């Protein structure tokens, strides 16, 4: 796990500057504190910051094949490298190391860009192919590892994080109005768009090829679901068989994710998913297992009680760190420096603290339960959609909407609602049950209200832009024929997962402390299998992740296996006010600063700040508004204006390799 960067001029006009490559990699030194490496010549430049996990002694990068015609810089893991290596050796490839990196080089020699389809893993890599005079960028199927790029005067500049691209002479950060509008609709910009103008994200499951004929991207993998009409015939097996097959797949997905030459730990939240992963690890290996969690001051958010239950049942060596409201406010600017996009909840901040804690305990790798809610239909939005659809069939029914009360037992504010109001909030789009976005319209509608705070200038530049319509145009052609649950799952797993969960709450906050997350539920074999499981086995009645409970429940304490979903949440606006509030909050939200940066209306923000300050309980929308505005202000300050942006930390103890030679 590492940071990668590179510069490639398809026209080979000049040799990429080593100085610039050094600056780029140093800007991401946090991702790879163990070693740095560079390779640059007339065919292009690659750079690498290494977090050594596999083949510690000889896995240095950039790495080449025997004759130096293929060079790679790679971030992530190819978990099936052991099997691929055997295949390649059998075909006559000579390997110098036992690293997964070298497997990429030879698999590419063998199959060209199509090699990516053989890789089971979380990866972003670049390959310079000197014979073909081209560069290939590739990103894993689900979007676990990031890679961004920009094109400056015909030169392709890419890196794991935007901050590295901004080291390239002439590339400046400017916030993109459409990226802002999308973030204040969906919670993230729609890839390849980012929050920065002219800086792009390679979307999950895509490769990019740059060569003399230009720069192009193509998708090599996407989420697939069966046609709704064929639901009953697609799956011949009964529920028990499905559960058994799922269990054995999950065991293998876990087993190959324990491959590392350093100790591997796990996150344990106390919910079903991370408990299931912990139990699966226990089945794979008998040695001591270290687990980690984050706790909160308020019982509204804290899950310590459930964590302790799992710890006792599965006998792990567990440590927890308390994240206070003050901690959240204090680390928030650093969190935004790493997320490199606006966020509407503070939830990434406690995970940033947790990764720091894990690192302090000497761990570089953790397995987590990420992805289960998306692929097995665990989120409340799926149940909410089911109830709304049931209601839409008989809109006049008095008792059908009463099921809405069952959806959010943990949200006291929502449950205090009179029935008439509860119904009104979920009524949006009820007259359009066939709309492909039926599931998500209430959520997007509520989030879009945040745009009330946009300044008149920002609104003018948006000129009536409609983010939901843009997404409509990006859906795969088969989408309209899928079951409604599959459609909703596609929006979660194909968009929110890479756009927010795996990035702002995942890679960016854990790699800030050089901690690599691994996610057995996101093994593409598991994802593809889950895609084929009939919707009725995922969400049975209002029993979410039903098939997952069937597959792994027997390895867990009953109270955990039967526990209803409680989404991970953290305290929001209250962190930023009161006597412990850090100084930057007042300064960045002041009318003067808001007017200077220009994205929001100063008097509206002033009213919001007053309201959050005075009120004991702040609603969803006001919370999201405050966190969103503060994060945009921090992006402006740190990326656009380069103020209070700490100098890149360079670890001087890391050894440096130039063109494969240690210096």
């Amino acid at each position, binding site marked *: 796990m590492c940071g990668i960067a590179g510069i490639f001029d398809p026209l080979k006009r000049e040799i990429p500057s080593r100085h610039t490559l050094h600056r780029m990699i140093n800007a991401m030194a946090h991702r790879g504190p163990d070693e740095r490496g560079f390779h640059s010549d007339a065919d292009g430049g690659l750079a690498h910051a290494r977090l050594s996990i596999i083949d510690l002694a000889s896995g240095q990068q950039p790495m080449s094949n025997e004759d130096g015609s293929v060079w790679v810089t790679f971030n992530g893991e190819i978990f099936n490298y052991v099997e691929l290596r055997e295949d390649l050796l059998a075909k006559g490839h000579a390997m110098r190391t036992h690293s997964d990196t070298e497997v990429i080089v030879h698999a590419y020699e063998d199959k060209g860009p199509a090699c990516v389809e053989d890789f089971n893993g979380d990866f972003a890599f670049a390959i310079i192919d000197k014979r073909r005079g081209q560069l290939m960028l590739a990103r894993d199927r689900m979007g676990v590892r990031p890679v961004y790029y920009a094109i400056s005067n015909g030169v392709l500049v890419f890196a794991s994080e935007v901050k590295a691209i901004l080291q390239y002479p002439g590339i400046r950060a400017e916030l993109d109005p459409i990226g802002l509008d999308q973030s204040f609709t969906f919670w993230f910009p729609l890839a390849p768009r980012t929050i920065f103008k002219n800086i792009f994200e390679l979307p999950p499951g895509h490769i990019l090829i740059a060569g003399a004929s230009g720069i192009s991207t193509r998708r090599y993998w996407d989420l697939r679901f069966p046609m709704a009409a064929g639901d009953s015939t697609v799956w011949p097996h009964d529920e028990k068989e499905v559960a058994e097959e799922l269990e054995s797949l999950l065991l293998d997905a876990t087993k190959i994710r324990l491959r590392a030459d350093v100790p591997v730990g796990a996150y344990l939240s106390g919910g079903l998913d991370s408990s299931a992963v912990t139990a699966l690890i226990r089945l794979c290996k008998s040695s001591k297992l270290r687990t980690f969690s984050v706790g909160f001051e308020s019982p509204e958010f804290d899950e310590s009680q459930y964590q302790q239950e799992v710890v006792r049942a599965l006998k792990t060596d567990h440590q927890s760190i308390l994240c206070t409201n003050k901690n959240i406010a204090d680390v928030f600017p650093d969190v935004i420096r790493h997320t490199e996009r606006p966020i509407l909840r503070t939830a990434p901040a406690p995970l940033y603290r947790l990764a720091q804690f894990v690192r302090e305990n000497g761990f570089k790798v953790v397995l987590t339960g990420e992805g289960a809610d998306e692929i097995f239909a665990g989120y409340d939005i799926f149940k909410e959609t089911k109830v709304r659809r049931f209601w839409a069939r008989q809109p006049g029914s008095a008792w059908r909407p009463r099921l809405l009360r069952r959806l959010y037992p943990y949200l006291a*504010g*929502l449950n*205090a*609602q*009179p029935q*008439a*109001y*509860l119904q*009104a*909030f979920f009524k949006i789009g009820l007259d359009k049950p066939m709309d492909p976005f039926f599931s998500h319209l209430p959520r997007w*509608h*509520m989030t*879009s*209200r945040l745009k*009330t*705070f946009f300044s*008149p200038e920002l*609104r003018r530049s948006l000129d009536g832009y409609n983010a939901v319509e843009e997404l409509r145009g990006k859906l795969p052609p088969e989408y309209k024929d899928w079951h409604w649950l599959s459609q909703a799952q596609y929006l979660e797993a194909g968009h929110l997962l890479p756009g927010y969960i795996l990035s702002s709450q995942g890679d960016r906050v854990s790699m800030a402390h050089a901690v690599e997350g691994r996610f057995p539920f996101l093994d593409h074999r598991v994802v593809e299998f889950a895609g084929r499981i009939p919707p009725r086995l995922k969400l049975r009645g209002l029993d979410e992740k039903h098939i997952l409970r069937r597959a792994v429940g027997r390895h867990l304490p009953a109270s955990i296996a039967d526990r209803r979903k409680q989404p991970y949440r953290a305290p929001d606006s209250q962190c930023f006010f009161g006597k412990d509030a850090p100084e930057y909050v007042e300064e960045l939200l002041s009318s003067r600063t808001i007017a200077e940066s220009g994205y929001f*209306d100063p*008097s*509206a*923000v002033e*009213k*919001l700040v007053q*309201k959050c300050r005075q*009120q004991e*309980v*702040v*609603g*969803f*929308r*006001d919370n999201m508004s405050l966190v969103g505005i503060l994060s945009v202000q921090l992006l402006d300050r740190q990326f656009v204006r380069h103020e209070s942006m700490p100098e890149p930390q360079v670890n001087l103890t890391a050894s440096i390799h130039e063109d494969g030679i240690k210096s």
Partner: protein
Amino acid sequence: MSLQIEPAVRQFVQEKLLFGDKSASFNDETSFLDSGMIDSTGVLELVVFLESKFSIRIADEEVVPENLDSVSRIAKYVGAKLNSSTKV
């Protein structure tokens, strides 16, 4: 009586729900729900505001859109409430 209620409610809506957004097309008949002006805690804020501003008590069963979903509905509902309490 309603003349005093309406400006106070309008001001509450402007300051606390719209945050002064002048571009929002909002009149006394605009539905708070349909326009997305209030979220799930917004109605509770509205109830607390009305109770403290007009010294009334709003029973749970009265918290329905028929009474509270626009400035004019609130004016009518609160007006009736104030009238009945002065008569007693």
